[in-house]
């Protein structure tokens, strides 16, 4: 390469000092550590030349935290005290040794492609497979709630369109974490009020998902003031594809075609930016706005082309733009790209800007030379732009040209595997658990009914119908368990969503999630156990089977350089591995978003560590699934599972401002027993609802809403009433059983030694009646509870 360049700059690296190396990374927003810069310098020293700005940017994007998960794949030496001794545990690669290890160990026969492609892919039936991916888009959302969240949805949908040879998106899931929407504190410059962020996000995700014609069927909204400066937006997408279209087939001499929208200066430095902190002077180009119609247009065309076998591989243009997309696809071969061929939105882009642009709604497709015309023709007919921009080679190099000048020439091996491994040495100091004060009488000057009302209207418990009904959850006609069900005008929330994608059989897909923002404040291991349990029990509760449940992990953590946060991450990964292996539910995909913190007057304010577990299950017969609303009166109501004194981090304690007791943890053996037994008692269950935020009393009352069927229960057997009602212990269900099946149901549970308790009966009278030791402690009309629950968000 010539040392004087016309279209790009040459960066003097080979003679740069360490200080200069750091300066180059900072100024260029490369987010590279000194060690990484030194490694790059060494590489170019062996090549006896300096890199161009294109090359440096390409390496920075490919080595970014977002693309490489450097922290999660780092080598970590962990020291902790076991009894009196110090023990050291070494993870060669944290992710590989925990999450991925669990999946390999379980070796589930339905897993087709895990942690390889853009999404996790599992077998659905004899001919088709299901793909699932969940991603976060936190930083852009904080900057521009509407644009950031809509591009988040667009991005994860593109991951599904770009997995295998292209999957058809059939459902979306969305989990949002917002700050305190009733806050009146003066927020720092550049931070939007949580309510504004909520509105922006709900609208952004709605407008994109609805336009794409993909039903949003499942999700969760969590409120916690710890997200005041950093909201979290997890966008998920599920797709379906034929099993013979699961693997990509790339070979040299195939053409690289760019499909979809044009390229502009949007979102440059998105991948490197996503791991930097939020502060005020960020360049405009970082924010992207989405255009769902362009994406819908190429989705229609690409599925057609896929079924005509017109292309051999596809991937989305996401973080890092073309540099990541082409780099990944051509990883084992090499490629030549001609940047002047890329259709632009406007003139004046430098080559590196074209190469790194994160303009939305673009896909990269690999097409054989002889099929190129047919492919481009199909696109043109529906006004979708498709342009040949390069080809796959066998040089094992990434070669990028702009007109006659070569602006980038890097070995694929160095680009993808050359980054120095991150290494961490950390020590964990366990906190002492506070003594539990077992004096939970109704002695707070409030009656049980008043507390129930406060819990039902708490933002983390109340109805989210304001959001759910703004998303079309019926489009495509596959939703056979809707997020909300009613016979009257009252809705009972459902634990999972069930899809019926192919009408020639009754097989279905179940989708659920588990998340909690309070537990992570106190006990990371229990938080991890609880959210995984939540996602699994939500699937079991609707009739799913433990043998066909698959998990996705999404870690959103605060400032990771702070030792405490990193050790929390390690503990969480280790716990996740153990739970997954015990239940036999493998992880099939995952992502992380680290460094969610805000610089408030030079101090780093982090979020609470938040792990989202998304789960997907396969059911054989959607007609045999269970919904949560009570079906009829004079039926028996039971609670299955054990309620313990686990109130720390509960909604009740958030209201009472207490933090003694302990965070709900997992009783592995009993939980597994319950889930396996559920399969046997399923045929007798008329309705079922899992117990989580707000305790068993919330679940019980939610079951009365749908058909306005009352319930009368007697809790006299219970020791401490408030604890029983509001503890958020894991692995529990409330079920409705016909009196005809009382014996067979109870016998089955007794035989399997599963703990359960008879609560009472459903009633025709639309009241919630609770008796406790000769007193009626609650005698409230369902509609009073419903009014508070449904208007909880007050939007």
């Amino acid at each position, binding site marked *: 390469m010539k040392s004087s360049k016309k279209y790009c700059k040459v960066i003097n690296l080979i003679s740069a000092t360490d200080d200069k190396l750091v300066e180059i990374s900072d100024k260029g927003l490369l987010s590279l550590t000194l060690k990484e810069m030194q490694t790059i310098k060494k590489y170019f020293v062996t090549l006896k030349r300096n890199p161009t700005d294109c090359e440096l940017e390409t390496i920075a994007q490919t080595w970014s935290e977002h693309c490489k998960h450097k922290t999660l794949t780092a080598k970590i030496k962990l020291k902790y005290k076991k009894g009196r001794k110090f023990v050291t545990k070494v993870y060669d690669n944290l992710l590989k040794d925990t999450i991925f290890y669990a999946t390999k160990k379980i070796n589930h026969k339905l897993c087709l492609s895990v942690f390889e492609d853009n999404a996790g892919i599992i077998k659905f039936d004899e001919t088709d497979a299901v793909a699932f991916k969940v991603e976060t888009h936190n930083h852009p959302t904080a900057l521009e709630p509407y644009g950031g969240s809509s591009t988040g949805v667009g991005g994860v949908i593109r991951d599904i369109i770009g997995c295998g040879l292209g999957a058809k998106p059939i459902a979306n899931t969305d989990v949002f974490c917002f700050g305190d929407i009733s806050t009146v504190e003066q927020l720092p410059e550049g931070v939007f009020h949580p309510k*504004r962020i909520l509105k922006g996000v709900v609208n952004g995700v709605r407008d994109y998902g609805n336009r794409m014609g993909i039903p949003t069927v499942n999700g969760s909204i969590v409120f916690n003031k710890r997200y005041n400066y950093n909201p979290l937006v997890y966008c998920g997408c599920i797709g379906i594809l034929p099993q013979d279209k699961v693997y990509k087939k790339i070979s040299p001499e195939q053409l690289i075609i760019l499909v979809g929208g044009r390229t502009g200066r949007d979102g440059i430095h998105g991948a490197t930016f996503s791991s930097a902190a939020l502060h005020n002077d960020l360049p405009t180009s970082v924010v992207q*706005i989405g255009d769902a119609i362009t994406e819908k247009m190429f989705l229609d065309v690409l599925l057609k082309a896929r079924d005509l076998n017109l292309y051999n591989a596809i991937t989305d243009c996401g973080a890092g733009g073309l540099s990541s997309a082409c780099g990944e696809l051509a990883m084992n071969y090499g490629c030549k790209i001609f940047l002047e061929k890329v259709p632009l939105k406007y003139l004046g882009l430098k080559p590196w800007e074209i190469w790194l642009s994160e303009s939305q709604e673009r896909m990269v497709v690999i097409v054989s030379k002889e099929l190129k015309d047919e492919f481009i023709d199909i696109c043109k007919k529906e006004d979708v732009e498709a342009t040949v921009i390069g080809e796959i080679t066998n040089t094992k190099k990434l070669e990028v040209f702009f007109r006659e000048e070569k602006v980038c020439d890097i070995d694929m091996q160095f680009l993808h595997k050359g980054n120095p491994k991150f290494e961490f040495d950390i020590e964990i100091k366990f906190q002492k658990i506070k003594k539990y004060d077992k004096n939970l009488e109704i002695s707070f000057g409030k009656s049980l009914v008043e507390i129930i009302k406060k819990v039902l209207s708490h933002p983390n418990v109340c109805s989210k119908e304001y959001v759910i009904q703004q998303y079309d959850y019926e489009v495509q006609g596959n939703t056979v368990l809707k997020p909300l069900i009613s016979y009257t005008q009252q809705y009972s929330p459902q634990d999972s969503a069930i899809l019926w994608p192919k009408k020639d059989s009754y097989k279905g897909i179940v989708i659920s999630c588990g998340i909690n923002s309070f537990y992570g404040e106190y006990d990371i291991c229990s938080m991890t156990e609880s959210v995984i349990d939540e996602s699994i029990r939500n699937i079991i509760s609707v009739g799913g089977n433990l043998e066909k449940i698959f998990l996705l992990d999404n870690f959103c953590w605060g400032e990771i350089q702070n030792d405490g946060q990193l050790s929390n991450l390690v503990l969480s990964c280790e716990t996740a591995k153990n739970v997954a292996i015990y239940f036999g539910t493998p992880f099939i995909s995952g992502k992380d978003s680290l460094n969610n913190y805000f610089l408030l007057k030079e101090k780093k304010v982090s979020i609470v560590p938040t792990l989202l577990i998304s789960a997907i299950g396969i059911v054989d017969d959607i007609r045999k699934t269970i919904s949560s609303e009570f079906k009829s009166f004079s039926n028996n109501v039971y609670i299955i599972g054990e309620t313990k004194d686990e109130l720390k981090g509960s909604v009740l304690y958030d209201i009472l401002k207490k933090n003694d007791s302990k965070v709900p943890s997992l009783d592995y053996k009993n939980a597994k027993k319950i889930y396996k037994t559920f399969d046997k008692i399923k045929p007798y269950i008329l309705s079922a609802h899992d117990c989580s935020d707000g305790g068993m009393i919330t679940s019980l009352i939610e079951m009365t809403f749908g058909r306005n069927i009352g319930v009368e229960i007697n809790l006299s057997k219970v020791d401490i009433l408030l604890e029983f009602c509001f503890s958020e212990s894991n692995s529990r269900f409330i079920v409705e059983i016909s009196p005809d099946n009382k014996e067979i149901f109870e016998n089955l549970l007794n035989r399997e030694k599963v703990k359960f308790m008879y609560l009472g009966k459903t009633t025709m009278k639309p009241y919630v009646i609770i008796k406790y030791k000769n007193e009626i402690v609650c005698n409230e009309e369902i509609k009073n509870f419903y009014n508070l629950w449904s208007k909880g968000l007050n939007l």
Partner: protein
Amino acid sequence: MKYFIKIVNNNNLVDMFSLNEIHLQGFTKVQSVSKLKIYKILGKISKKEIEYICEKLLVDPIIERYYINKKEYLKNITRINIWFKPLVLDIVAQNVYKAIGYLNMKNYNLEVYSGTQVTIVPKINKKIAEQIIKKFFMNELIQTYEILK
């Protein structure tokens, strides 16, 4: 030629949600707030052709009316126009441009921009207007605003 088009809904609804939020955040002087769609079209095109575009494309003849280059009387109200910054995707404008092409009109080498006009009752001072606009109606990262005089 420069044309500024305003689309007014005959029902002219108050944006209650924003009004409540504005009050909650302490701006109690604000009596009402409403939004409407605005467009800017530049190019070699006559007023008659612009009227044609408004009638055939931009306006819903049953419930809306349009104004072109209307003179504003701002005695008791504050009006702010919000537009996208250059290079930010203005999807509505792109589609308006495309649709103008369907109207069988010749020579439509036009520039089209879309935006929002916020009307606040009563007239408030510039500083407060800016605060309200930035907090509730626009994002400085991708939009610009002009308080009408």
